[in-house]
């Protein structure tokens, strides 16, 4: 629904270029054939796997939309518990009615062609990807860290303020909005291709922070990442 946050012109332009055939949250009718499927959310139930596989079969291009679909996101925080513990904690005596599996990104289940990262996804990045796909081009997404954009934004380094930040190892593309908003990077876009974990550790040492502190921050979006496993 965040995508509905388009301006009048952007939305009407988009509707002129594509035909939206299935969007349950906004449209009543549905269709079964489509070129591009945007999939939101992570996989948390067995029954979702065949549904996702079916979408993969029907779509020419599958785009993962948002942090949950791209990297597992906050849903994977429950993976630090056993699924029985999680069920008991939320549903108590009625836990037997429900099922859940370890949360995972959609790429753990199907082949994914493109990723629109971020939590929430950024409207301009979404549009950029849609336009590239309509033109038959591969969308370009940065592979350098958030720090690069953060400097351009003119922010004071979060480490200088004595707080932990995941900017040095997180894939850019967000213009460091969280730091600009007075906070720090949580890593919602996932890691850069070759994260320099040693350098992050050096920064932590320099500012008197511990690896544990940064691991706790890491868990929030990147529990499913290889670095965490």
């Amino acid at each position, binding site marked *: 629904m965040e995508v509905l946050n388009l301006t009048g012109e952007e939305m009407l332009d988009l509707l002129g270029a594509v035909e939206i055939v299935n969007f349950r949250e906004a449209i009543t009718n549905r269709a079964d054939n489509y070129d591009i499927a945007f999939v939101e959310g992570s996989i948390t139930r067995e029954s979702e796997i065949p549904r996702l596989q079916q979408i993969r079969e029907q779509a020419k291009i599958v785009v993962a939309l948002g942090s949950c679909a791209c990297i597992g996101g906050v849903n994977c925080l429950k993976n*630090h518990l056993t699924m029985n513990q999680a069920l008991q904690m939320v549903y108590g005596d009625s836990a037997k009615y429900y099922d859940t599996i370890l949360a995972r990104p959609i790429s753990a289940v199907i082949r994914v062609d493109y990723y629109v990262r971020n939590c929430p996804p950024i409207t301009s990045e979404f549009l950029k990807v849609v336009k590239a796909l309509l033109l038959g081009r591969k969308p370009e997404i940065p592979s350098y860290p958030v720090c690069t954009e953060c400097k351009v934004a003119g922010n004071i380094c979060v480490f200088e303020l004595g707080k932990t930040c995941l900017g040095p190892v997180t894939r850019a593309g967000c213009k460091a909005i969280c730091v600009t908003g007075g906070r720090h990077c949580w890593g919602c876009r996932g890691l850069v291709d070759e994260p320099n974990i040693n350098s992050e550790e050096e920064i932590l040492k320099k500012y008197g922070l511990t690896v544990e502190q940064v691991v706790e921050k890491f868990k929030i979006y990147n529990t499913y990442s290889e670095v965490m496993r």
Partner: protein
Amino acid sequence: MTRVNVNVHHVTRIEGHGNLVLNAKGGKIEELRWEVPESPRFFEAMLVGRHYDDVHHIASRICGICSITHTTASIQATEAAFGIQPSEQTILLRKLLYDAELLESHVLHILFLAAPDFLGVDSVIPLAETHKDVVVMALRLKKLAYNLAETLAERKTHPLSCVVGGFAKLPDLNVLKALRKRLADAYADLDVTVGLFKTFKIPDFARETEYIALRDPKEYAFISGQIASSDAPTVSINDYLNVTNEFCVPHSTAKYTRNKRDAYMVGALARFNLNFKQLSPRAKKIAKELGISAPNHNPYMITVAQLVETYHVLDDSISLIDQILERGLKGEGNKVKPRAGRGIGVVEAPRGILFHDYVYDDRGIITKANCIIPTNQNHNNIQKDLEALVPEILDKSEDEIRLMMEMLVRAYDPCISCSTHSLNVTFT
């Protein structure tokens, strides 16, 4: 014998997954069920072990539409646990940010999700051709709400600058001044919406139920107050569990609730019914124009109550900006000292009363969390409404019955992902 089978698997134009099932034979209902099969989310389990500074960031992710709501309830729960009393400046900014959320959410529901039913189309998209002015207007109102939220919290969906203890960054007063003008201009857009709604035929149906909402003696309550009920005396937010009485039902991953009757309603109509006197004079005038008075027992009027509230929200946000401009803003340095204990945060989400309840240890790490979402509280009432509605309309065609059932569910503006811990109608 006439058979009526309605089976809507995944009702559309609502947030999340819900199903409607109706089987009737010879005028007798054999099966009628509102099912919520959305995947369980486990936010309460996900919050355990998290540091207070990350908690509202995660809690915000319960919902992409009402993330400011969840953030606010979460921050207030943490502040209650730590014994922090937010400053007057913080409260003004929080209320203004909250108004941005209500404006955006109500406009989205009124014009994008509910209006297509009354205009005989299946979504807002065909309206882009037939009612382009309405669509452009709705997008303009949404944009205004987004810009207001961006000014205050850097972003509307999953806001950033509002934190435990206050704001991590303060808004630019000149930008607020410019927004004040746009808010004042927005009445004209709402007036067009009211004109449109006057042409809509709202289904004639009534079922009295218990209505529950926050009530604050000082104002039409959104982020403060105690728990008021149409059936019982007002109680402290600390006694919320005695009001919600959650229970599980096997066909639903969302928990259900009940208080004095078999079900209760929360949301815009509950607020309207309980706190009508505190609405702004302009909102009251619009209510009269739209033919709604308190109490109203027609759930299809929830959308109309939202429209009335939208005027109140515009009045309120302009008044808040005036207060902020007059007093100015100063950096307050949000010092937070964690302490062990329990804190409860309660707000009125666009869809109704929302509870966040946390237990912290002395390091500021959550050991236990409970969230009770408005849509959860409405599920049971939706079921009871359907049980009263369907016998009245069984002589209609299956298509008409299906539409009436779907419109009823949509009126509640359910946000099912939030509550699952969904919507789909099946006529069988």
